[in-house]
């Protein structure tokens, strides 16, 4: 599945510094750029983080960011991302708008990474429908995977417990299925 690459600075850094430092294989690797630690960034990042913690909408969804419809194909996403990235890349942005453009660029990067991976896109679409726009997008892939695995373990442990409980009562006389009848017969 994924290569489990850990990024430098794996501690619980504030949100704006958690963006992937250009380490992804596909997606943003196209431009091979790492985010610059820009003072303007911090302010913008804080605003984003606050919005996330409130759980409310900050405005645009990933689709709005890229300027495509929600049912856009991979080709459309790629094209839109490339177009936008060329416009908002910090190297080509006007100096007074550098901060804002950089923040935009980072958001674009996230949008592209999420939407170009079909699995993540599916999850994002679902969360979008439930109004949790930035919930999954700002988590790092690796963290996500770890959490997922832990969640899976919890889930199947519960499922096993429930099955055990059910299986105690399964062959009571009310169960008329073929299997239950045969088991009762066998255990007599």
């Amino acid at each position, binding site marked *: 599945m994924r290569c489990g690459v850990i990024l430098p600075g794996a501690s619980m850094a504030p949100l704006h510094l958690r963006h992937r430092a250009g380490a992804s294989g596909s997606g943003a690797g196209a431009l091979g750029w790492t985010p610059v630690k820009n003072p303007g960034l911090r302010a913008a990042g804080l605003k984003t983080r606050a919005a996330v913690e409130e759980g409310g909408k900050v405005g645009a969804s990933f689709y709005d960011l890229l300027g495509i419809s929600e049912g856009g194909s991979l080709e459309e996403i790629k094209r839109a991302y490339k177009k936008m990235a060329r416009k908002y890349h910090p190297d080509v942005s006007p100096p007074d708008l550098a901060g804002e453009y950089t923040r935009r660029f980072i958001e674009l990067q996230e949008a592209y990474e999420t939407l170009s991976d*079909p699995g993540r896109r599916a999850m994002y679409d679902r969360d979008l429908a*439930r109004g949790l726009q930035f919930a*999954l997008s700002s988590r790092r892939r690796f963290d996500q995977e770890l959490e997922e695995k832990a*969640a899976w373990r*919890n889930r199947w442990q519960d*499922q*096993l417990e429930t099955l055990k409980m059910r299986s105690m009562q399964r062959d009571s006389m009310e169960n008329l299925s073929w*299997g239950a009848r*045969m088991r009762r017969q066998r255990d007599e």
Partner: protein
Amino acid sequence: MAASVSLMAAHAGARRFFGSPSSSFDARKKFRVRADKDGKAMIRKEKNEWKVDYSGEKPATPLLDTINYPIHMKNLSVQELEQLAAELRADVVYTVSNTGGHLSASLGVVELTVALHHVFNTPEDRIIWDVGHQAYSHKILTGRRSRMNTIRQTSGLAGFPKRDESVYDAFGVGHSSTSISAGLGMAVARDLLGKKNHVVSVIGDGAMTAGQAYEAMNNSGYLDSNLIVVLNDNKQVSLPTATLDGPATPVGALSGALTKLQASTKFRKLREAAKSITKQIGGPTHEVAAKVDEYARGMISASGSTLFEELGLYYIGPVDGHNVEDLVTIFQKVKAMPAPGPVLIHIVTEKGKGYPPAEAAADKMHGVVKFDPKTGKQFKSKPSALAYTQYFAEALIQEAEVDDKIVAIHAAMGGGTGLNYFQKRFPQRCFDVGIAEQHAVTFAAGLATEGLKPFCAIYSSFLQRGYDQVVHDVDLQKIPVRFALDRAGLVGADGPTHCGAFDITYMACLPNMVVMAPADEAELMHMVATAAAIDDRPSCFRFPRGCGIGVPLPLNNKGIPLEIGKGRILMGGNRVALLGYGSMVQTCVKAADSLRNYGITPTVADARFCKPLDAELIRTLANEHEILITVEEGSIGGFGSHVSQFLSLNGLLDGHLKLRSMVLPDRYIDHGSPKDQIEEAGLSSRHIAATVLSLLARPKEALHLL
């Protein structure tokens, strides 16, 4: 010294491949399996994971060497099981690199195999592997390790589980989606006989797309017999798991459902809430928690789990399919329950896991020839001509360029049928329906009724699944669906499960079907064009596995439609006529060449059509020759039978003619090299020449040839 240098180089290479492990795991001591003079082992545990150096030498597998049968695994601890899994991986890669075969499927289920054999008591407990190409580690663990170097070769191990081969192979498989049905049969029989063993069916997400899997699950839910179904989900629904441009996205709605199942965050949040409530209130709130669980499970939009639940199977998962401890825990718990009924355990694995070249390849190295274990590079010899499959794909693309009504359908075999090329050129006109041949045929029929020209490319043996649809939905209604039957005749290493012996028989007996077979790749292209032109009735053509013979191709690879029901004569002669059908025509030509040394000049004819037969050609051959031999690579009831029926009805057998039909023998030919199989079947050019000689009353020379 060279050995240690290569080991070090491989070690460095492996280090680069694997990168640095994550920093959030605790550092653990290195566990040395074997220390050679450099102090580095090939299979070793670093921090939290097992690493394997694929260096091309036979890997040192101290633990695996002690396991001959599953019973030797019973006393292993979880750590030892993990080590065993790493050693098994190394062994599988080493074996397949020397023999060729199916690689990544086996790598994905190594942990599952180890867990199953550790927990269950085979052979009393039955394990059924769907399709079976992932069962290499199963074979290694069940007493066949020493023979693994013969796998898929003549007189060697079969590439799929086979009941005749070992008592640990509970059911013979090769076509997909049969494991749950077979498992249910074994479970019900066990109940009727009063036994207490367990039955486990392992099925993949690709095989789940076939209807038979649902039929089986539906029935098992109803019968409620104890049965464990392991759904091995590696998100590879189509084979060989890649289009020309990269990995294939999963086909069908089911994979979407499975993805959602794997990532349902809402359930987790609810569960956390329930847990915290229980902690705070304490006491009899476990009932409340259980109720929340039940409620939550039904409420989630993860329709996949409710699908299995609705069918009557208890759903457990998703589970990390590469974590031996988790798997062993779950299997032990389920095994201990007295009456779990049918249970479905959804495990998530990665195809080719643990072997970086396979993980990185677009097609995950599903089926490979011999390769170099260090790099994963396959040793593919450059043939002089391309495979028939490629010529077919080329010809179809050329037809579709001029006629935009042509569409192509296949059943999860884009690579095998060559339709990946068609898909690349005409993405909107190529349909992959998943492993669903029945649906593919009727779907094609539906397309054709609206005026489109569908080409159904399905392997000869896989079309057996959709035969009623061919008869009832296509032929009975005379709907112009074109069938391209690849892998017709004997298929070599895959063996009798994939052998296309019966398609001439089952297609030519249908009243409205046009049945043809090309003798070489140019003829194949013409027949594609012919099929495209036949618009008032269904048609089919068959071609074998293997490469063309190198004849000149038509201009621009665009075929010219042949006249229907007209064969051709390749060589004129006297007294003896060899009438070949399909690729056997080439064998007849060879036989004729060798017969010239005996002073015999046979006529060699290519029938081209089995239905409608070239009546004029056959009449000529019958009237002007003393001996007529028909040759085909198909079972009885095919071309030879149609010719003999024609001859007898037209009174041509009442005279001087000696007729012999050479067909595949009335038994299943085991896997092996194509040459060995043809020899075994008695259809080589020597056999044809010997038949001629014995008919000419020259038995001594015939015996010399054989």
